[in-house]
């Protein structure tokens, strides 16, 4: 649920044309920028980069912008999308939409996404870059998790733990998930509980049990569910579960009842 409504005028394409931008490209500095420059120039020999550069997002029904249609999700466009992000200058909402598009395109640009994430200041844009960790190679996922772990924005930390929980090899990232279970933010603790449940992370069972006393009902609910997914018999036998059958929150009570029902 987000507040409506965007300033739609902010969704205009970049002021500068692709040709003008290409003519004034700065010399790349960091290694990832070199990689991006090379991929960009290669891809633009075959693609209509002018059209991709000036493409505007649509406004979703929830009020935020999104790039629609499969053309822009062609992985071959990913360097161009990354370049739009690197160049900056577009409205923060559009930059977030570009970051989401880059994640959906799914191209693993090596260090480019991590490089962009390192230099990104906007928490929403960074979160959407971190969401690459769901699909990216393990090395990129680990680098993004490292950035997120120490990031002050709970939105970024939440995105990381959710992305790691969705990975097929998510159990390889259990250290991060265990760390996020002790996060100071309620929503991050909730998301980490969910991720632990999805991955049926056995080492998370005891940390999850500690969250059954969490003051937040969502945290208790997700922790309880996760314990049930990891080991339903052990969860049912945990003394806190009987107590939660009388929890103030009806959803928590329902889950506890389910666990206690043979």
């Amino acid at each position: 649920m987000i507040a409506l409504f965007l300033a739609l005028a902010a969704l205009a394409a970049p002021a500068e044309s692709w040709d003008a931008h290409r003519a004034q490209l700065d010399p790349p500095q960091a290694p990832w920028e070199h990689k991006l420059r090379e991929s960009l120039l290669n891809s633009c020999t075959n693609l209509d980069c002018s059209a991709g550069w000036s493409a505007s997002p649509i406004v979703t029904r929830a009020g935020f912008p999104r790039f629609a249609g499969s053309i822009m999700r062609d992985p071959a466009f990913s360097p161009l999308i990354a370049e739009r992000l690197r160049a900056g200058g577009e409205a923060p909402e559009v930059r977030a939409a570009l970051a989401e598009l880059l994640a959906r395109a799914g191209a693993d640009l090596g260090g480019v996404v991590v490089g962009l994430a390192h230099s990104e200041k906007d928490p929403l844009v960074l979160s959407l870059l971190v969401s690459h960790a769901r699909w990216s190679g393990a090395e990129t996922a680990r680098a993004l998790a490292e950035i997120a772990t120490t990031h002050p924005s709970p939105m970024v930390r939440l995105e990381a733990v959710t992305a790691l929980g969705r990975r097929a090899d998510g159990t390889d990232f259990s250290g991060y998930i265990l760390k996020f279970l002790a996060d100071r933010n309620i929503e991050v603790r909730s998301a980490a509980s969910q991720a632990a449940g999805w991955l049926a992370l056995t080492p998370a069972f005891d940390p999850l049990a500690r969250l059954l006393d969490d003051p937040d009902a969502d945290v208790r609910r997700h922790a309880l569910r996760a314990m049930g997914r990891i080991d339903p018999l052990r969860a049912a036998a945990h003394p806190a579960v009987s107590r939660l059958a009388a929890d103030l929150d009806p959803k928590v009570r329902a889950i506890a009842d389910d666990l206690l029902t043979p």
Partner: protein
Amino acid sequence: MRAAISLLIGVTACGPLVDEAVFEGTPTEVVGVPNFDDDDGDGLRDALAPAAGDDDHAPLALPPALTEAVAKDCSLFAYLYGDGVRIYQGDTIVLDDSVRYWDVPEGADPALAVEFTDYLQRANLQLALVCKDELIGSAYVRLRSAPFQMNHHLQAAEHLYVMKLQGYGFSNLAMIEQLTEIVGESNISVVPSGDYEQDVWIQDEIEFGHLIGKETGMELILDSIRGTDNVGLDPFPEDHLAGPGVALDTYGAPRLLTSLDSFGNLEASPPVSVNGVNYPFGRIYFGRGEEYAPAAELQSFLNRQGVQAPVYPDSSWLCVGHVDEYMTFIPDPSAPKGFRFAITDVNAAYEFLEGLDPEQGLPQYESFHGYSSVGDILNDGALRALNKDWQADQVDPTLTMMKQELGLDESDIIRLPLLFEDAGAWCGHTAIALMPGMVNLAVWNPAGETPHLLIPDPFFREDLDYQASDPLIAAFDAAMPEGVQTHYLDDWTVYHEGMGEVHCGTNIRRAPSSGWWEDANHLLEVSR
């Protein structure tokens, strides 16, 4: 007022010149509509700029003998009790909120007109004939104005609105072409979204309804607060809809806006009966949550109308947060209630998927959703867990509540297979339809015709051009009542990817329902 009445009954006698029979034919009730349209185009509701001769004034014809009696040494006094009413004789306002008493002059035209200035006004007009200080008789005329009646899916469809949008890699032209073919060119307005900042979500901007009087009526369109200051579709209703016979009204403060204030989140059921209470115009359902809710002013307005007492399912678990994303009502002429209630169901979705070949390819889902086959979806354990949780925490309690509040039983319900996915960081990881939300459909049912359901094409097949090969379409068709015709529209790039579906991108004008003063008095008594 009490003194005036006392005067009336202080009878002295010289014998009446006329008798009580002159009151015969006095109407007992005038039922009209609040005069909220703007016939003269001055930018003001007509009720705010009183003018005689407005066709939205309700006629009040007194018996000619009653006014003629004034010429025979008799006085006819009229008293107005209650607010929000103006009574005209000819070009003159003779009674209103500030003028409560009218001494009807000799030779007065018996044809009066009543103007209501708000919804649900209740007033009484007392007519008293006094001849030579003797009260000959009196009569009361009850004056009532209409509540807002929101349209529901059993009212006949009359006109469909859709916005046109085309851009680099996306377009809704195919859907518009399909819609035009189904509803007919004269019944569709295709509006360029470029005139409205590419805002295509016309379902969310306005809600059609009616104000119905015995001899007058107008369409009343609620204009949402989602777009203000000319952002997006904000000026659309003024540009294309408002005018004589069509009024607009808005409730709420835009500064407190959330997507719950959009009108895909505001719907009405068909007529229902709940524990012996009939709701002949159905009940409004409007999504809200623990932390967020639609504008309090709008909730209060809808509650006050009385005839469609709202119920509030939780829609805050959805990224967009609209009730149309997970339930709707489908006309079914063969059903005992005339409709079926359709609601999404995760278990039905997994049952459907498990009956398919896991190797079946899903080319349409690969690029946007990241699933290239049925097996990919089935094997995503986190997706399954999320969906099971949403079903248990949100959909099941909603179904229980809707059954209870709308008097539905199991035979009224159709469970439609749908999976949701995590909507990501923009939306705090709430839910959004993964397979196109086929429940998020539009109902096109012109009077006397078979109802047509305008449904998003799920593209749950390998050959995207061959709808007949789609197992999800087959499953959906099998779940539908026999008396409806289904159409599967390509809404993918502009709507599905934009977090909406066919219903969200269309809006349908409907014929008015019947008179509330006959069928819904019991609800108005309760609400007052």
